[in-house]
């Protein structure tokens, strides 16, 4: 299993924070739909991956030492051709060397640029009394400013998943407010249930943050993810 190998590798390096690449590989294994993601260790590999995946693509730095990739110039969006991808690769590497020279660089991830949609988030943290707790909310500014989020204690039932999505104030937005594309609620429910099952069966996961998830009419896609292991 990829998951166990990833966790073992992180343990060996004595780190609890998994990279976006590792986190997404784990999510994919438990059946959560994530963007395709390939690791490039050179400019040439980045170009090759982008051709396989199809343009436009996104390049992001992969380093266990970098938490906020955008802040250090580690993210390049909307790359439409081979040349842009190659240049973006070089720019990311030199930006990291400049801003955070001590960071251990595993490479640069290449991912297809996902079509924008309503953003939601799913998170898991642990309460000292109640253990793993799932959080659901709208993404972006709404979750930060309005604290429009709902909680459930793991394990979730189908009904819990159903209710925790519907009880956020922003639920009408997910239904497709004023002609916006509606989100597929059943798909989001399934995603919550899969996350619940996953964290319930893996006590060594300390925190999980899938943010954002793009919620489309007939699917949902994890765009960024972060897993933190128990020490």
């Amino acid at each position, binding site marked *: 299993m990829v998951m166990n190998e990833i966790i073992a590798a992180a343990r060996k390096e004595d780190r609890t924070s998994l990279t976006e690449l590792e986190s997404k590989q784990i999510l994919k294994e438990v059946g959560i739909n994530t963007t395709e993601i390939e690791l490039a260790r050179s400019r040439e590999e980045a170009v090759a991956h982008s051709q396989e995946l199809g343009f436009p693509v996104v390049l992001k730095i992969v380093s266990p030492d970098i938490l906020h990739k955008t802040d250090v110039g580690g993210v390049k969006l909307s790359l439409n051709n081979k040349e842009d991808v190659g240049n973006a690769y070089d720019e990311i590497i030199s930006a990291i060397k400049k801003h955070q020279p001590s960071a251990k660089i595993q490479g640069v991830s290449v991912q297809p640029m996902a079509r924008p949609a309503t953003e939601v988030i799913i998170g898991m943290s642990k*309460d000292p*009394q*109640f*253990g793993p707790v799932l959080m659901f909310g709208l993404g972006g500014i709404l979750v930060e400013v309005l604290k429009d989020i709902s*909680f*459930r*204690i793991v394990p979730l*039932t189908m*009904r*819990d998943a159903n209710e925790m999505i519907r009880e956020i104030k922003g639920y009408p937005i997910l239904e497709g407010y004023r002609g916006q594309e509606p989100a597929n609620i059943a798909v989001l429910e399934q995603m919550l249930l899969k996350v619940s099952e996953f964290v319930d069966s893996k006590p060594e996961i300390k925190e999980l943050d899938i943010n954002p998830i793009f919620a489309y009419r007939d699917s949902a896609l994890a765009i960024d993810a972060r897993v933190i292991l128990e020490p």
Partner: protein
Amino acid sequence: MKDIVGQLDRAFNPRSVAVVGDKMEMGYMWLRSLANFQGRVYSVQIDEKELQGIAALGVKNYSSLLDIPDEVDYVIVAVPRAVAPKIVQHCIQKQVGGVMLFTSGFAESNTNEGIRLQEKITEMAREANLNLIGPNCVGIFNPKIGLRHTTDQYWGDGGNVGFISQSGTHATFFTLVGEVNGIRISKSVSYGNAAVLDATDYLEYLGEDKDTNIIGMYIEGVENGRRFFSCLREIARRKPVLIWKGGGTDEGTRATASHTASLAGPPLLWDALIKQCGAIKVDNLDEMVDTIQALLYAKPTTGNRVGLAAMTGGHSVVITDAFARAGFEVPLLTERSYREFASFFNTIGSSYQNPLDMSSNLPHLDRIIRCLDILNDDEMIDVIVLDLPVVFLTRISWHISGFFDDLIDAIAEYKERSGKPLLAILISAHAESEAIEARKKLVARGIPSFPSFERGANALAKVVAYYKSTALQ
């Protein structure tokens, strides 16, 4: 799961009780509360000054638990905290069914001595598998056998409502105010610091208890949240469980630490937990009492449409606001109902939209009841709410002798043939004692009543949400 029922049954249904350390200074409150206990009562006291007072109560005193020549099922301990470990040791040797420590000054005092003593008695009790309730609590109330913690609690007939409270005050007040509201206790327990037995143990016990159909809980914190969660989830499927979480605000969580040394947990998580388990959230004693009263006496419904029968114009407006704010629909009635109203209803100074303002139809009992019958037959209506303004109805009784009582009789007769839930609201204004008397009469006839429109609406909203949620299971 351990056999909590077998384990706690002796303590909850004792045939012999010993009180250790009761004294004059406390008015011998514990021995007096056992005046009607349907079993054997013993006292343990070594203070010479107290012996005469104890003898005067007709209770046999011993200088040690170990000297009592009988099995002891339940022990009430009111000694100074430093003596507690010795008494706990005696309870273990005596193999009692359970011991309750009224004694306080343990972990909740946040003193080294208090924490040390609590750790000590906890360790002793755990090792010996002793059922230790508390410390810092008032223990068990089982009215059927006259086991009480205060003499103003009733005894004799028990009921079907169980109550589990981390606070002694709330346990006592709930039993007292509950009685006025037609709520009688099967068994209740106040458990304070929960050093050994925790909320989950008592919940499991009452969950299995055949005499208990509804469970109310006042909780400040739980020891093992996971266990509480799965236990509540399982029991709330079978019996309504109402949860009043003390320390439900970030500020309030500070107070729980000094009251019962509880780790309160984040309020948002408790809200989620209650919902997830299908329990009912209440925020204060009034909501606890109102909601249980509605569960006990209002016919179950998942309907959302109320027919509002007010007795004055002013009430007809605000009763509508209160129920609409609580999320209810106040629909217009069918043409058939309106035709019937037109045949007898005096509309000068009154009206019959929905809400009804029936003032001009007073003091004709038959017309008031006819209004209720019309609402009962109207397919647009799920629940009927009747306004009984105590001051006006009492005033009518000044010149029509027995009017208010006759009205209550007529309502009770109506209720017998009605298929829909009925709630009465008694706004007391200044006539609070008259209102309480009338409410007692109503609930004795099986009619739930509430002291304000808002409280009635809120209680109805909670039970309708509960029945909807169980219907989904």
